[in-house]
């Protein structure tokens, strides 16, 4: 029986992973755009990205574009796999294959 991924299952982290998973592999999202797409606040988003990064599900790249700092978040292969498994488990629950 497949288990739900406790790290991904938190609602905002689920939205973050869904957004990153919708992009082609190795394509990331800038922090500000990710904030807009997930409807998160600055502090909230930062904390949850850190949790996902510690789990190895996302990679965080900080760079300067001109004089402005820019943070880009990308789903790792492990993160993509974990998200796909999490979605499959959700579908199994809906289909009644899991209690």
């Amino acid at each position, binding site marked *: 029986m497949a288990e739900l991924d406790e790290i991904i299952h938190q609602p905002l982290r689920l939205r973050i992973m869904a957004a990153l998973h919708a*992009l*082609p592999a190795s394509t990331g999202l800038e922090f500000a755009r990710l904030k807009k*797409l997930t409807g998160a606040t600055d502090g909230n988003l930062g904390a949850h990205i850190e949790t996902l990064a510690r789990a190895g599900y996302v990679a965080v790249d900080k760079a300067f574009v001109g004089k402005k700092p820019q943070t880009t978040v990308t789903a790792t292969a492990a993160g993509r796999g974990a998200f796909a498994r999490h979605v499959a488990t959700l579908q199994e629950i809906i289909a009644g294959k899991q209690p």
Partner: protein
Amino acid sequence: MIDSQQASAALNDINDVVHRVRQSRIYQNASLIIVMWGALVFVGYLANYTWPPQGYTIWAVVDLIGIAGSIAIAAFSGIGPGAGAYALRLLVAFLLFIAFGIFCSAVLGHFGPRQMLVFWPLFTMLFYALAGLWFGYAFIVIALCSSALIVTAYFYAGPALLLWMAVVHGGALILGGLWMRRI
């Protein structure tokens, strides 16, 4: 463990985010193309105003650069493995669009230079509005605002039509494209 209702809510949440991401990527790529066309037609109108007899040549050059630029942006848009097919569809769409426009304006309609000046931008805006029905309301807003300004120019700009078109058509596309990037 969660029940099927909670699982269904989680999947709906995922679908909502995926839809937003796709919409955002369409806007990002389209806005680049729209701003580029805005800058090109702005220069085209000014060049046409400066050298009126060269009008057809000027617009042929503007269109060629615009089509090549649009296809290049589509091909290198980072939309993944489907980018090549997307760029090819865009080229076919441009060719059909131009062929139909020429047929209407030169074969069926015999439009004069003043009618030609507003026909092509209005014809373009029709496609923006249609695209908006599938790809997002921003296209419709840009199409309606530009069309209103172009029609106003046609009736009220008098001999300054080319200059007015540079501002209202070129300017509306540039501003609309930049606005689209911020949505």
